[in-house]
């Protein structure tokens, strides 16, 4: 990282480089693209993976923070910051040409902060309606309901996107049509059995073949990040479970760790064990649901119910531990809310061989079925380059050959003490993603096996102050959730509430890549690919 620092200082003498925690570089907007390009093309350690794109309101200025990482070594991270003082018409340059994942993120920043990105090919608001008044994440946002009344009139979809392009004559505002004139467009979603939530894909069809997909989201956007700015950290915890509800406990673990790290709270060993075991159980339940939903998307209802049957066993363990089944309210700042119940170890140990048996059954029943193979092999191909560019992490990213398991490369809790294999496949098709999940269930079982007998005695929760204030600074925490890298970013100004809080959702990347990998596939395969990507919508509509 020292060489990176020197490289930046040599090429950008005006940049403000600081190294409190992660390497942070602040530059003027006009130098931003050049800096990122330099990092992007860096020999040996290219920063080609955009983990976060965070909009921010610093009072005078509106800024964007980028956390760049490298696909070669995901533990190498550089934070790039820029800000513009024009609050009326803030403009920044896009980085969509380098990082495809920036596209939806920039559109979200536009909706929330009003920053428009020059050369972004489609500058519609993401998550919000085009006619929304105000920018909700700005500190001076007027939340008067009269400004944005609830409309009961059905609005026509407008498939025209505004954008700002840089030409030889300067900046030009223009509009572009998303679809061609005679396209046969169907709305897959927001109410559709296989969009796995309130997702809306406007899809242009040529017969049965998908020509183009336009992603709409935000039907269940709750403004969690904005709400969090007025809540204390223990209060915010409850939101994390409502993001990716299938990895509820893992998400919550991320926020807890972020706060603990910032407030220097030592978590007892026993709590670490409980958290890790619960995380892995949570991953198993998430993968089981993903497996079930995928088989159901392919039309195999029986397999769906089999997956649900096994998931029920995990949920029963959650239920007995803390009372929650889907929303596992177990992690709290400093440890866990409850100690494990007396038969916890016995229950988990009974579950492991049971689950192994059932994995074999899945293998016999579905994994080699000739129709299933025909519906998955070489369908929805995602190359490694695209996976990185779209920041597709988790089982889907690893199915494209990208080693991106946070548990391996930025270990947290007890993951540096246990042995497990990172499941990587290189085919990048639906079948690789499908098999990855089943194999990861097995790896999770192995992790649990190593921990379950060694839970140390002691406290399950550290004593924390009644009011937790974080020292000034920026804090990041990544975890490996069921669907990929889930991240928490907290900017604290020393208060009991965060100044800015951002959740990095893996599902947004998974959805953003759908238009690419579904192009020219059949409409049935579009559904099947959606199942193999396994996105959860509340995770996007934060």
């Amino acid at each position: 990282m020292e060489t990176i620092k020197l490289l930046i200082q040599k090429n950008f003498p005006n940049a403000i480089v600081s190294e409190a925690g992660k390497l942070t570089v602040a530059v003027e907007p006009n130098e931003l693209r050049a800096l990122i390009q330099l990092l992007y093309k860096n020999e040996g350690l290219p920063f080609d993976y955009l983990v976060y794109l965070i909009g921010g309101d610093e009072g005078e200025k509106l800024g964007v923070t980028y956390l760049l990482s490298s696909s070669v070594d995901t533990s190498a991270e550089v934070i790039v910051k820029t800000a513009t003082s024009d609050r009326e018409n803030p403009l920044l340059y896009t980085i969509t040409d380098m990082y495809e994942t920036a596209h939806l993120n920039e559109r979200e920043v536009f909706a929330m902060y009003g920053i428009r990105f020059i050369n972004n090919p489609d500058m519609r608001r993401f998550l919000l309606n085009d006619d929304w008044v105000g920018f909700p994440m700005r500190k001076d946002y007027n939340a008067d309901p009269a400004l944005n009344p609830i409309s009961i009139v059905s609005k026509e979809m407008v498939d025209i996107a505004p954008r700002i392009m840089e030409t030889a004559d300067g900046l030009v505002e223009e509009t572009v049509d998303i679809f061609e004139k005679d396209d046969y467009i169907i709305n897959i979603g927001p109410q559709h059995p296989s969009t796995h939530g309130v997702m809306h894909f406007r899809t242009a069809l040529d017969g049965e073949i998908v020509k183009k997909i336009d992603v709409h989201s935000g039907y269940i956007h709750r403004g969690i990040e904005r709400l969090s700015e007025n809540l204390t950290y223990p209060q915010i915890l409850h939101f994390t479970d409502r993001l990716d509800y299938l990895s509820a406990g893992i998400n919550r673990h991320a926020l807890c760790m972020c706060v603990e790290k910032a407030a220097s709270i030592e978590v007892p060993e026993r709590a670490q064990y409980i958290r890790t075991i619960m995380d892995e159980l949570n991953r198993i339940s998430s993968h089981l649901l993903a497996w079930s939903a995928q088989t159901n998307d392919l039309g195999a209802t029986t397999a769906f119910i089999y997956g649900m049957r096994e998931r029920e066993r995990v949920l029963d363990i959650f239920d007995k531990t803390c009372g929650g089944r889907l929303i596992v309210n177990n992690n709290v700042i400093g440890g866990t809310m409850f100690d494990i119940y007396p038969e916890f170890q016995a229950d988990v140990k009974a579950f492991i061989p049971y689950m192994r048996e059932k994995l074999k059954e899945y293998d016999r029943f579905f994994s080699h079925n000739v129709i299933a193979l025909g519906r998955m092999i070489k369908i929805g191909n995602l190359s490694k380059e695209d996976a990185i560019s779209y920041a597709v992490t988790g089982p889907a990213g690893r199915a494209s050959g990208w080693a991106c398991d946070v548990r391996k490369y930025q270990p947290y809790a007890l993951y540096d003490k246990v042995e497990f294999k990172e499941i990587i496949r290189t085919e990048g098709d639906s079948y690789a993603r499908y098999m990855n999940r089943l194999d990861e269930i097995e790896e999770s079982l192995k992790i649990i096996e190593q921990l379950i007998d060694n839970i140390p005695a002691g406290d399950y929760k550290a004593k924390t102050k009644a009011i937790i204030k974080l020292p000034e600074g920026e804090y990041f925490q990544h975890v490996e959730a069921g669907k990929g890298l889930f991240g928490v970013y907290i900017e604290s100004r020393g208060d009991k509430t965060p100044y800015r809080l951002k959740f990095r959702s893996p599902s947004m990347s998974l959805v953003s890549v759908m238009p690419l990998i579904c192009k020219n596939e059949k409409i049935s395969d579009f559904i099947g690919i959606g199942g193999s990507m396994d996105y959860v919508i509340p995770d996007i509509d934060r």
Partner: protein
Amino acid sequence: MTQPFELVNFTKWIDSTLQALLPSFWVLVVELLLVGIALLGAYALIAMMLIYIERKITAFFQARIGPNRVGKYGIFQTVADVLKILLKEIIHINRVDKFLFYAAPFFMIIASVLTFGAIPFGVGLQALDFNIGVFFVTAVSSLGIIGVLLAGWSSNNKYSMIGAMRSGAQFVSYELSAGFALMTMVVLTGTMQFSEMIEAQRYCWNIFNGHIPAMVAFFIYLISGHAETNRGPFDLPEAESELTAGYHTEYSGLQFGFYYLAEYLNMFIIAAIAATVFLGGWMPLQISGWDAFNQIMWYIPSYLWFAGKVFVLIFFSLWVRWSFPRLRIDQLLNLEWKYLLPINLINIFIMVLMVLAGFTLTDLFN
């Protein structure tokens, strides 16, 4: 052979009583009415039983319990469901092609009832017994597709349209295979009349009599029959996870009920025809020369034999349905046009040669 439990004794009694009371023209009218009512009643009853059976068997496959609230073991569940669907409001959709939209379900149900009438349920229990029975069945059963296409077209719904188009392609393709498979057996028996076909299978079912080509034809018929009924791995027209409910998305109440009933009955019809053409129909198990044994077999009435054979086939169909994921439209058409159809054509040719050369089992062993 005495046949003590056959319903034909009862129908003959009705006939003779009517003959004694009425002039022959009115006897005919009354009997036609009675047959019509009996058929419709059987149609509804069998559909209800099938729905219950399907739900219970499916539950068994899927590690569930199934209906168990209405009546003992939930046996009255479907009765309640039928009552519900009769009472349900028919929601009128504004922007549909009204005439076609309301006409479509009738095509479906009429095609299904017409085919139903030609099925031999037991000794003397066959309403229509043509000398071209097999032809008639294939012809009228394909009328149903008109109902599906009309529904998809008139619904003014893009999902319904895709479902209907899939259904059209699927039905036309697989009707071909089903037809050829039946023709293979017509070659073997030399008749198209169901009653004669059954009589010809008295001592040796067609599937054994024609051995290898007959078994191939049977297998192809089951696959294509399955595809024609839009079930199992071939349920593309209403692929729930893709098209919500496909061509009948916009229908509600009894109109939806028509599609639902017809779907179940078509499953029954396909199984019934397969049982009749390949497995000896209602004919009890008979072994040439074993008169005492044959007599015992006749004590089990023919309609029960028929029901048993049909049930086995339906169970098989459910087993397939709940085990396999769904095919994609191009895979579905590939299967038909690149595999089933060529195999079928060669198969029918082999069957002709075999019959001419006298290689059927009855030829070989008599």
